[in-house]
């Protein structure tokens, strides 16, 4: 029996080697090639991985580029994946997420002639062949704060942050300033969940805030935010989403979402590589002025909401609910918000970035 097993496995191994020995190497044409390494979590995160992917899909259809993506199972793979793209002569290599900043820097140093882009982390000493794509979340959050203050009947709004650190203070600061801009006397409740993935905690915090009189809550808390939406549904009150369009998560209760247009930023970077205007060595901030951040449509249904209906995520009734809510609740304030947006772009309103200057002492 021992012999049989041995022979059998040798035969198998032999067949295997013969069949798979000759490896045809894929070669490609002269089109611009873009490689992207997504952060762990990968596609389907409803946040920046998906958004970056959308941006590349758009670039593929509109600019005729070719792109490949890698979803690492382990952050240790990041460096290897980035390096393989660089070695294979991709024109642009993109890394997504804070955890990739070190690896991207190391690889970019080894490949000075390859262009790199990094999403969502600024570099203190940025290399000449790297651009870092960042977002002026404080400007978008200012709009969210202003909208919350306009919609609020109790003069009391809330903010739920994920984890208490610099990046998330950008959202907090923008929201606070926006709400106070509309109504200096409004009460802004601020709480942190210390977790980006704990909906139950988000729900408890939100219920507490509603109990204390808030009627609109904005979150910058990733998965924890789902709990905020649940609380809004339970109490029949309102919430504001973040990063991508989350209005369909709790139809009729999420009155708007602050958008971080990672897709636009990625698309523009690819475009700059295609037409030869790519300029490395900069930390770019995508702002309201170039549609890098913004807020969902306050009057009409957005593409994503209709998409969610077509994909069967929400029913027709729920889509109708969103439409009604927009008509009754947010459309009356659309003009005012457009005006504020214009003022921020023109520099008439200066929004402070609390991620950089810190939270004011009186808070």
């Amino acid at each position: 029996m021992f012999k049989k097993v041995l022979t059998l496995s040798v035969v198998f191994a032999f067949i295997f080697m013969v069949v798979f020995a000759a490896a045809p190497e894929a070669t490609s044409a002269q089109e611009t090639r873009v490689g992207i390494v997504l952060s762990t979590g990968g596609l389907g995160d409803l946040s920046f991985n998906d958004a970056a992917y959308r941006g590349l899909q758009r670039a593929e259809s509109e600019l005729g580029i070719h792109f490949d993506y890698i979803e690492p199972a382990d952050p240790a793979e990041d460096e290897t994946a980035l390096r393989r793209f660089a070695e294979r002569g991709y024109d642009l290599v993109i890394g997504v997420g804070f955890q990739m900043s070190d690896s991207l820097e190391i690889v970019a140093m080894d490949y000075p002639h390859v262009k790199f882009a990094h999403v969502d982390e600024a570099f203190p000493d940025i290399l000449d062949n790297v651009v870092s794509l960042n977002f002026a979340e404080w400007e978008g959050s200012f709009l969210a704060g202003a909208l919350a203050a306009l919609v609020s009947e109790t003069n009391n709004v809330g903010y739920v942050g994920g984890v208490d650190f610099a990046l998330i203070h950008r959202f907090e600061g923008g929201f606070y300033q926006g709400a106070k801009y509309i109504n200096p006397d409004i009460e802004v409740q601020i709480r942190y969940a210390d977790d980006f993935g704990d909906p139950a905690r988000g729900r408890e915090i939100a219920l507490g805030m509603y109990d204390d009189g808030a009627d609109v809550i904005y979150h910058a808390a990733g998965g924890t935010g789902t709990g905020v939406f649940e609380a809004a549904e339970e109490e029949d009150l309102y919430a504001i989403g973040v990063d991508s369009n989350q209005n369909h998560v709790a139809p009729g209760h999420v009155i708007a979402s602050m958008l971080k247009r990672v897709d636009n930023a990625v698309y523009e970077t690819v475009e700059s590589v295609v037409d030869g205007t790519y300029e490395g060595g900069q930390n770019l901030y995508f702002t309201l002025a170039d549609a890098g951040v913004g807020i969902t449509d306050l009057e009409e249904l957005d593409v994503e909401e209709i998409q969610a209906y077509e994909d069967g995520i929400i029913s027709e009734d729920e889509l109708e609910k969103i439409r009604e809510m927009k008509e009754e609740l947010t459309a009356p304030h659309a003009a005012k918000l457009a005006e504020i947006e214009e003022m921020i772009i023109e520099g008439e309103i200066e929004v402070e970035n609390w991620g950089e200057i810190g939270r004011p002492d009186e808070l």
Partner: protein
Amino acid sequence: MNNFVDKVKSILTNLALSLLSITIALIFGVFFILLTEQSPITAYSALYEGAFGDFRAILNTLWRSTPLILTGLAVALPFRAGLFNIGAEGQLLMGGFTAGVVGFYFTNLPAFIHLPFAILAGMIVGGIWGGLPGFLKAKMDVHEVISTIMLNNIAIALTINYGINYFRDTGRQATPRILQSAALLRFNDMADHFIFGKIPFIEIFEQPGIRLHINFIFAIITAIILWFLLFKTTLGYEMRAVGHNPDGAEYGGINASKGVILAMFISGAVAGLAGVGEALGTHLSFMAGMDAGHGFTGIAVALIGLTHPIGVIFGGLLFGALAQGGLEMQFAGVPSDIVMIIQALVIFFVASLQVLKVYLAKRKAKGGVE
């Protein structure tokens, strides 16, 4: 002499069985690859190229195997003492976190103190995290599966949720960068090292993209030490006796609780070393997500290695190769989900063919009677 032949035969049977099961797994994998409309030939040659294609690929396979060998050992040793350590994940996190903090917190220690201090601190904290369930099991009969799972959750909360936020100074979800004096030696820096630099041809390691560091050597040494401990010392004999039959062992004059606590402590320290290597060698800081489920993969590694320390080395190498080659498969256009399915198929078949081996052994025993 006959004994020796039997031993070689049994090792060869094991190897042949493993080879057979890997082959069957890859054949099943073909169907899944076809679902993605990719050529299985391209996909598998990418798997092979990625894991063994060139010198760098081989070294990086060893690098990916390192934490898996260590967590595999951390599961295998208690297994021999009749304990199921599900807590390698938490022990790895505690060890890695401790080493990461020691690595950046002490700023004026020379390397020959700083590095050993960081490694030992990580291993001891990991050891305590493993020893605690061992103690509870020995003294209060708390089931180790439950206590280690709970300790995993506590470790995640302590290190990733609370610890990183306490120490971090940038938006990066990690502790600050460790100092050079606490970094584990990387193979591509060896040519400049004052001792290793003297080894002839050491400069072949000096090329970009080789990420292997010295922890691999530590892992192999650990496996050998554990083999010696288990099979060549009284303590190891006692542990195995407790594993076979705790009451019998106790009756025979063996202190079962000592064996249980020690096995769990050593296991925790070994898992801690896996975390230490990731923090001080791979990421140069303690980073959220760096555990990557190694503690749980370690269970599969230990079972495939037949919970024998030397077998675990091979189990770890297999998983390291699948991880390293799997990344290359993604470059060949196979989505990461399919890569994961193929990795799972290999585990499944290797594990299930062990059953065949047991059957073979039984038949052989019967044949002996005839």
